[in-house]
């Protein structure tokens, strides 16, 4: 999982402020460039050290291990491309986990973004108590990644759990959700949707950037609220939508904790919540095939890179940058 995560965060690494706090700029004698760079490195060293020791080195080792057979105890033995070949030809369960993950991404991400946008729009037009509601809606995002919430979720959606009891009270007897193959994935997706806080805050910031005069002009032209939303809000917000979409898609591909807790680590019932990362963990830590698990991690990194690239490609067609005359050549506007 770690290679994929670092791919997501690696974009923020280049901007190193040139020698902060050494001397006011434009002083009588500017120091040679090399010297200031040296100071920058000193200040950067904790970060560089962390990135190299905790991210880059493990990634390199994982790449090496992906070409080996490694069970944690005996030294890794080189097997060439066997792990990769096995993934594509001999592992039906892997295919199942890929399909599960795709299904999950396709369900959870749009639902979550739609929810976040709806709440952000509602919050923006709110006159009083905005701060309170903003915090209240954000709270699940802070809690959601934790194991305990996933366990609460399990209790909620179990047979005899809260959801089951309420539905039974309404005359709908369907038992638990997490123990039926058709419903388990949806209950995990709902947990993700519930954590809409982070994209919501970003949407809110984006909404506040839209110039008020655009709405006024639209109102003068006779546009109603829906028309304003479709013709002003959405185009102006599209870069933010795009940003959220990319970020949440990358995160959704790496979903792990909720599925692990809800299914007790097995990805059940009947493999219906066996996500890619869960299967990766199973191969690595239950079956002790660390080489195979490493190969899976690198395939995930590649897959996320491809999906992100495709998203960037499509963005040209629908992302609108207000101050960009070439009509959006890249997504780095924001």
């Amino acid at each position, binding site marked *: 999982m770690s290679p994929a995560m670092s791919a997501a965060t690696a974009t923020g690494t280049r901007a190193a402020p040139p020698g902060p706090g050494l001397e006011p700029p434009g002083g009588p004698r500017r120091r040679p460039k090399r010297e200031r760079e040296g100071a920058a490195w000193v200040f950067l060293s904790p970060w560089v050290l962390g990135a190299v020791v905790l991210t880059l080195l493990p990634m390199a080792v994982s790449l090496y291990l992906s070409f080996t057979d490694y069970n944690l*105890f005996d030294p890794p033995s080189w097997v060439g491309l066997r792990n990769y070949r096995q993934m594509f030809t001999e592992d039906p369960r892997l295919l199942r986990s890929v399909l599960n993950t795709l299904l999950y991404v396709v369900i959870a991400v749009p639902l979550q973004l739609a929810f976040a946008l709806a709440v952000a729009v509602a919050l923006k037009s709110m006159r009083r108590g905005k701060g309170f509601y903003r915090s209240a809606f954000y709270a699940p995002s802070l809690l959601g990644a934790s194991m305990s919430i996933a366990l609460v979720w399990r209790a909620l959606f179990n047979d005899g759990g809260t959801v089951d009891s309420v539905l039974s009270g309404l005359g709908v007897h369907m038992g638990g959700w997490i123990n039926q193959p058709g419903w388990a994935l949806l209950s995990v997706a709902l947990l993700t949707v519930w954590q809409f806080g982070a994209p919501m805050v970003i949407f809110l910031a984006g909404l506040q950037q839209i110039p008020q005069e655009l709405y006024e002009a639209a109102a003068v032209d006779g546009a109603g609220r829906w028309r304003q939303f479709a013709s002003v809000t959405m185009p102006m917000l599209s870069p933010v939508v795009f940003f959220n979409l990319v970020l949440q898609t990358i995160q959704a591909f790496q979903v792990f904790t909720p599925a692990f807790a809800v299914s007790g680590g097995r990805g059940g019932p009947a493999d219906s919540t066996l996500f890619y990362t869960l299967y990766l963990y199973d191969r690595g830590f239950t079956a002790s095939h660390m080489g195979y698990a490493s190969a899976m991690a690198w395939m995930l990194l590649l897959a996320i890179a491809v999906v992100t690239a495709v998203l960037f490609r499509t963005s040209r067609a629908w992302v609108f940058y207000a101050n960009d005359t070439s009509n959006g050549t890249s997504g780095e506007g924001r």
Partner: protein
Amino acid sequence: MPGTRTRVSCAATALALCAALAGCGGDAGAAGGKVTLRFTWWGNADRAALTDKAVAAFEKTHPDIDIQTSYAPYESYKQKLATQAAGGDAPDVMQLDYRQISQYAGSGVLRDLSTVRRTLPTGAMPHSLLKSGRVGGKQYALPMGVGTQAMAYDRKAWREAGLKEPKPGWTWDDWESAVRRLKKANGVYGMTDPGSFEDWFEVWLRGRGKELYDAKGQAAFTAGDLDRFWSYATKLRKEGLVSPATSTTQMDGSVENAPMGRKQAVAEFNWDAPSAGYEAMVGKNLALAPMPSGADGTPGQYFKPAMLVGIAANSEHPRESAQFIDFLLNSREGTKILGVDRGLPVNATARARVVPKLTGFQKEMADLQKKLTGRLKEPPAAPPRGDNALQSVFGRDYDQVAFERATPRQVAEDFLTEARAELRP
């Protein structure tokens, strides 16, 4: 150059910061000449309470030794220990499953216990049990307790159905008709579906004179055998006699998430010591019965060390570790505190001392083992390394059967294909 000094002091500050941070993670074990040992094990909160009590008693008589304990449920414990061991950071004293012994001993994680023989005598332990901790003629681990498979059941529900207590030698057919009557009398599922656990398949298989693995560590059963076992479970499930798929699929090894723990069944197969967990739900009526045997009375279950304990090869305090293990397994006080929580004591003297004083469920457990003594066949050799993965695959595959995604035959074939790949030498 004025800048140089600033730069140097910056660097110095950074270094000092690093040093201060590193200092926070310093070694606490070196303080005051006290020896610190790490002891890790798997289990639940009840076992934690007993173990901590035993540790406290040991520390009282050995004031110069400090023992840090940590525990986790079985699955996560196994994963954590493997990672620690691979990183050369195995705890001084570790509880082990017999599946782990050959791997850990072979990779040099465990210490040869003959080096601490004087501190940790094993004379009072039966040879048959010591065998399971031996690799290549050397003793790497000692059994902590003896366990066997069992059927835990609610005695009250059993009696209300007009059933007699099962005796050693009862067959799977007897079991089936008992389940049928339980269902009729109680209206709940008589029994938890046995199809999802490899362990119960093994008992069923041995009752037919076969084994899970042959001497070379390859699968010794056919897809036909597994098909027959799963078809049998499926027949009972379809009649509503055993727990349904939606309930069985939630089993994760803990008593709380098993159908009997959730009061959806009145009987369930389990190992004897962990069955103590049902007491919270069933109370005083909790009873243990032998596992059903094959049609001709061939017993499928066996005695095995419920768990073992070993010392890390790179432990800096092997002697103190040995003292601690000796306290747990041999001493009057240690064995008294631990009771039969990790299975019946291995040390024959301790066993003779502990067993007569048992009450309640613990007595139930001792009685079961007494009834079975001399009737069971030799336990199988420790399973091959791939068995670890296959255990979880077994449950996962049975989900496909229980939710009727595929026929027992198809899934059995799939399981064997995967087993062959996992067991590849």
